[in-house]
């Protein structure tokens, strides 16, 4: 049984090809405004990487906010279910999944590969990847630099996490006040973690806690979350593909 999971997110498209519990290939690409095109592209590229032909894929499952646009998928399942399944596939002890994506963040309670409860961020970009993107932009940083730089900070500056636009103006005023970039960015990471903690509290924390989504790669955010939780979280080797992986796993069922 070979299945493909395609996750069309707000910023990136991800695809995982899975054969009997083994990941054959995966790929991450920037998403284009034409979601159908993005879906085809990510699928074909991953297919090429796996060395398989289209006919050899038994099932395709789409997820992510663009899932409805993947018209060649056999099934469409929300990213909540897929992240829960993907995280449990990699880490069977997972009980809480925190996924921070481009425009959505969610906290999911899982057990035996089933979603027990979930909470998503309010209608607001604060607490999502977009928040970091905007702040990195204001600071003239590349998104990949953010995490490492945040770890260098000796002090965290306070940034409110209520609104991305207002937070950006806070960042700008810190810059003009001559504050250190790493201290500002550490404050940004802390603001996101604070926002997520409010969601975690609603679902309830149960170990192990798995961090997924593109933002999980950001060491600054990860450390801020761990500080607030008081223990270490588990981050899969490639946290960004967990949703696509979950979709692929569901495709084998």
């Amino acid at each position, binding site marked *: 049984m070979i299945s493909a999971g395609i996750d069309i997110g707000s910023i990136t498209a991800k695809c995982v090809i899975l054969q009997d519990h083994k990941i054959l290939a995966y790929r991450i690409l920037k998403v284009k405004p034409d979601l159908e095109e993005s879906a085809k592209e990510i699928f074909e590229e991953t297919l090429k990487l796996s060395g398989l032909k289209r006919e050899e894929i038994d099932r395709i499952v789409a997820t992510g*906010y663009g899932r409805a646009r993947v018209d060649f998928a056999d099934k469409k*399942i*929300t990213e909540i*279910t897929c992240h829960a399944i993907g995280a449990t596939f990699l880490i069977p002890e997972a009980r809480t999944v925190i996924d921070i994506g481009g425009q959505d963040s969610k906290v999911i309670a899982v057990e035996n590969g089933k979603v027990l409860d979930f909470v998503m961020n309010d209608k607001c970009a604060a607490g999502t990847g977009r928040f970091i993107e905007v702040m990195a932009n204001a600071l003239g940083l590349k998104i990949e630099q953010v995490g490492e730089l945040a770890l260098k900070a000796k002090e965290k500056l306070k940034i409110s996490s209520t609104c991305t636009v207002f937070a950006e103006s806070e960042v700008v005023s810190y810059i003009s006040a001559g504050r250190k970039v790493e201290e500002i960015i550490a404050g940004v990471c802390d603001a996101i973690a604070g926002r997520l903690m409010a969601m975690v509290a609603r679902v309830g924390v149960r170990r192990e806690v798995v961090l997924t989504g593109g933002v999980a790669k950001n060491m600054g955010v990860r450390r801020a979350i761990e500080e607030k939780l008081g223990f270490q979280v588990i981050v899969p080797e490639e946290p960004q593909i967990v949703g696509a992986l979950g979709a692929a796993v569901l495709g084998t069922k």
Partner: protein
Amino acid sequence: MRKLQSSERMRELMAGYYMQGHQAEFNAWITSGAPVELLYAMDIYPVYPENHGALIGATKLGSYYSDFAERNGFSRDLCSYARCDLGCVFAGTSPIGGLPKPTFLFACNNICNTVVKWYEVLSRIFKVPLFILDTPFIRKELKESHLRYVEEQLYDFIKFSEKITGRELEERRLKEVISKSIEGVSLYSQCLLTARNKPSPMNCFDAFVNMAPIVCLRGTEHAVNFYIDMKKELEERIKNGISAIEKEEIRLLWDNIPVWYRLRWLGEFFESKNACLVADTYTNAWTGFGELKSTDIISSMAEVYTLSYLNIGMDRTAEIINRLIDLYDVDGVVMHSNRSCKPYSFGQYEIQKKLSVPTVIIEADMVDERIFSEAQVVTRLEAFLEML
């Protein structure tokens, strides 16, 4: 969705109701939770700005009319019924050509406290008298002092309206109206209860669409006749095995005021997932008015209207929802966190913890379509249904 014939009759009935308003000698603008029976008993025509707001929402003109109020300095955070109502007043029209100018205003704060300020504004604009029926919020138990306080105001209100209209409230007429009100509410409740059947012959969207008569015409023959017919149609459906949606696999309960501009969209969404929203807390709130008594009218009125669904503490609200969960045997609750309606939405996260089945919260607004984010709502609802 299989449309009820009653919905067509309701449209005709309500068109007649709105038309009548322009011919009435006296009319009062009234809040949805106020004792309308007193008005009908004195032949004062009741005008419902909230119903009008729902109508504006359903015609997807919420933001258009709201803009007129916002340009006059009213905050976007204000209730969208209030914004649309004031907006229509400023615009001088509405989808139905505006509401008739009020003789006086009658606001009861058993549904929210926005109505107090909203009606004060109306009173200043139209330069007409306003009566505020102040019902104390019942956090735990209803006390004798609460009842006396409300009862006295009801007598004051009778004097107030008698003075304005020069008419006298006849006891015989009041009794008639009360008995029609009780009969109407009872028939209405029986309509809603048909949804206990599996599969359900109606869903909450049918209930939303057909609630206008129990709100606006409660206490009249029209509401009684309407719900007699609707009940007949629903019983006929049960007999013939006709369900509200094609395939009912999941039964759900809706909480809060509907998202009026997305009724059809939501209806089709749930139907495509074989999920039927068999009942809701909103339309069920009116079944409580059935506790009126034709003897001891004023004191029973004080009690019934003080204990309205949005005027009680969170524990009681949760109790009521749990009762509906059992009664309609639902698998989950969809809670609409309504940007407009603070008293209805406040506490949902706490109430959620007290309920016996899983819940999902979606953020939207009853009338202001700018608040609705389709992709976010779809993901939450789909994930919830996958979970169930």
